[in-house]
């Protein structure tokens, strides 16, 4: 750790002495990168905490009972369960992984993970507030909640069928900790620290990429396609992917995209909490590689269809 400390101090001195930190690019990157990590990391910690509680303190029998329910029942219940777990997307990933490991059907686990950042009271309330100024509060809340639920259930159904073994990425500390229960509190602490570190590093990488792209790539590159509903929706889904915003705040950004159709704004609000730069890395930490590819294959058409139907209904 002494070497790490010395390298850190050297890096700080090098940047300060060369004035590299004064450049606009460096300032913008630093601020956006740090802001994303500072805002999301406590949620990762909360997710790790809940995940550790599930692993250590919830008895196997509870998950066995849940696991025996028909998948057709587990899926919608899990998706609606997001309403009772109001955290951002960063917190739901470790929890979903742990739920699946403990015996919840993988389809239900994925549905819970994807629904909770959209179908939760804080996010729906912020959507209401943001769109109140445009007189579209309840339409946007309903649209976001419904399309988000449909997407979560469709993705859970499509991705979770292979079973937990094929879905989850195996981690070195999964078995080590489970078999080394000196005490329940000790096991809880190890799971908490392990999940926090494991998911946190992927958050840092994802946030760095999101900040780098926000720093160098102007959003106006997609402004020319704004008026076309299909291309506009795909364009704002791309912006949502790059921006990596928290789902509790993204409605206040979406409402500013006034040159885009309202359906495209809905696409931004549904797609972003399900798939963005930081989430891609968090998913890679929790699930095997093809998870993200299959999620993209479901999320893009479902979100696009939902946004077009929404647009048609509001006309």
């Amino acid at each position: 750790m002494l070497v790490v400390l010395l390298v850190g101090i050297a890096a700080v001195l090098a940047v300060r002495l060369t004035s590299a930190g004064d450049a606009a690019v460096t300032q913008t990157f630093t601020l956006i990168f740090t802001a994303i990590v500072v805002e999301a990391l406590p949620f990762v910690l909360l997710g790790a905490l809940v995940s550790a509680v599930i692993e250590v303190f919830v008895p196997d029998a509870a998950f066995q009972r849940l696991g025996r329910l028909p998948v057709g029942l587990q899926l919608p219940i899990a998706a609606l369960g997001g309403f009772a777990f109001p955290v951002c997307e960063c917190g739901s990933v470790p929890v979903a992984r742990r739920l699946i490991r403990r015996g919840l059907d993988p389809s239900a686990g994925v549905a819970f993970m994807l629904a909770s950042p959209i179908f939760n009271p804080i996010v729906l309330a912020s959507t209401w507030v943001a769109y109140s100024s445009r007189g579209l509060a309840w339409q946007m809340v309903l649209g976001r909640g419904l399309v988000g639920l449909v997407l979560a259930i469709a993705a859970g159904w499509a991705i979770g069928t292979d079973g937990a073994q094929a879905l989850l990425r195996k981690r070195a500390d999964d078995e080590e900790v489970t078999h080394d229960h000196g005490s329940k509190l000790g096991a809880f602490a190890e799971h908490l620290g392990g999940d926090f570190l494991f998911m946190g590093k992927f958050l840092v990488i994802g946030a760095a990429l999101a900040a780098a792209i926000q720093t160098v790539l102007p959003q106006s590159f997609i402004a020319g396609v704004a008026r076309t509903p299909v291309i506009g929706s795909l364009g704002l889904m791309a912006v949502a992917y790059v921006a990596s915003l928290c789902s509790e705040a993204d409605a206040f950004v979406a409402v500013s995209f006034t040159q885009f159709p309202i359906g495209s704004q809905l696409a931004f609000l549904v797609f972003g909490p399900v798939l963005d730069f930081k989430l891609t890395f968090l998913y890679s930490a929790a699930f095997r590689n093809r998870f993200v590819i299959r999620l993209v294959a479901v999320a893009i058409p479902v979100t696009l269809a939902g946004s077009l139907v929404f647009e048609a209904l509001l006309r």
Partner: protein
Amino acid sequence: MRGPSSIKAVVLAVWAGFFVWLVASGEIYRYIGPRTYWVVVFGAVAAAAATLLIAITGRRTGGGVDLIGALAMLLPVVIVFAVPRPSLGALAASHKLSGVPITAGTFQPAALGPGEKVSFAEIEYASESSKYAATVGITDGYPVELTGFVTHPAGLAAGNFALTRFSIYCCAADAVPHSVTIAPRDDKSYPDDRWLTIEGHLQDVDGDYVLVPESIRSIEEPEDPYIR
């Protein structure tokens, strides 16, 4: 405490300390909006509690740890101390898609409260909606004082520049720029990112309100660089 546990505890302790420093120094508002302030306070308490728990129980348990991952986790803290007091400026403003949150005709205006002054957003809205301008009382010749940084967006008349300031909701990643066009009477130029306080009056130019300065003062970046 064994090696892996000590590394986990150190990373958590650094983050607990960093969260506390953000709050104690006031730097938190540079990165996070007031509505999500609680997230950082929660992070500080939870990370400190987790550090203590791992430190106390670490003797009895093991578990693996990823050293590269632990180093990656410390990167944001190192960067913040390498680049102190970073700010969003003209570059960030030019990359944002839109700073006008509301289109004309859809906005439901609210009158300003007692003591509230017209600021960037109100002037932007007034340029978009004459109904809003009438409600707030913005007219040709309306006196205003604005503090922001200089930007030069495309499409401005020669000699004009824009005064810009960001508003944030959750964090700096969702920052939205608000700009007002400045039409100076002299031909003095100002570089991007220079912070200015401008007193003057609004002028209606084909429905768009521009600020005609009566005085321009260069200032240091304010402690709180955002519109609240």
